[in-house]
């Protein structure tokens, strides 16, 4: 199949858009003061990550990522924000002390440098011959045959998590 003429000039801006959305969303999620804006940053980063999954040959995971992260995780966090008051008070002592922030930045920067060097300089093997194309059909077959243990385990984990969440949060209708 011959590609669309000059298609790379269309693909590159879309890729950079998703890359920028991921980074900007993550930075907004971490640096903003109000938690509700932080959730919006998480949603933006999720859109960017879904685009990254699309570029990594997996449109199925892109759809699932938007469905779970924006449709379930962000909405649940917004519910929790409405039920609790998670904003950080501005006048509390010891908050955002400069040394604490600098220490956090140093730790995160160290982790980033180490992992980025590993990714760039690491002795990665040559791409092997691919035995399947990773389509949705292949994922479905794998989930029910070779990967069925993962499928059953995650079903069990989700069941236990739902039961646990109900058990922890249920005695809340009557405040004493």
């Amino acid at each position, binding site marked *: 199949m011959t590609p669309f003429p000059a298609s790379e000039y269309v693909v590159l801006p879309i890729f950079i858009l998703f890359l920028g959305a991921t980074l900007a969303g993550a930075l907004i999620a971490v640096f903003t003061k109000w938690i509700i804006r932080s959730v919006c940053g998480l949603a933006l980063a999720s859109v960017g990550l879904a685009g990254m*999954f699309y570029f990594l040959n*997996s449109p199925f995971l892109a759809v699932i990522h938007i469905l779970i992260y924006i449709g379930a995780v962000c909405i649940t966090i917004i519910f929790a924000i409405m039920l609790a008051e998670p904003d950080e008070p501005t006048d509390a002592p010891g908050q955002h002390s400069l040394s604490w*922030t600098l220490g956090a930045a140093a730790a995160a920067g160290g982790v980033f440098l180490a992992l980025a060097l590993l990714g760039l300089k690491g002795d990665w093997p040559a791409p092997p011959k691919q035995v399947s194309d990773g389509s949705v059909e292949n994922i479905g077959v794998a989930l029910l045959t070779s990967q069925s243990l993962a499928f059953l385990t995650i079903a069990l*984990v989700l069941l236990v998590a739902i039961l646990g969440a109900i058990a922890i949060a249920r005695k809340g209708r009557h405040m004493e």
Partner: protein
Amino acid sequence: MNLLEMHQNPSVYLVLAALLLAIGLFGLIRRHTLVGMLISGELIFGAAMLNLMAVNRFFAPDPTTGQVFVLFIMGLSAAEVAIALSIVIAVYRNYQSIQTNELSQMKG
């Protein structure tokens, strides 16, 4: 590195995943509320997923395995959010606050 072939280059994805992990770690240390720390944790989950997908796309013989793995991580993170937010609600009910420096009591 050819800029036009940027989306075919595994280094871009690996460095982006490392950067997401670093940002999430920074937020996890810096935030003083439970919900803020939870959001940073979600960023770290996203970094893990991106890293797995990049390695799966470029260096694995069977691209199906990594996608099943990422689906597993998504399920885990959804379960984690459900549990963590119910704990947040329970803590708020007892303390009227979810500031981490006020949560200093344990009761068996």
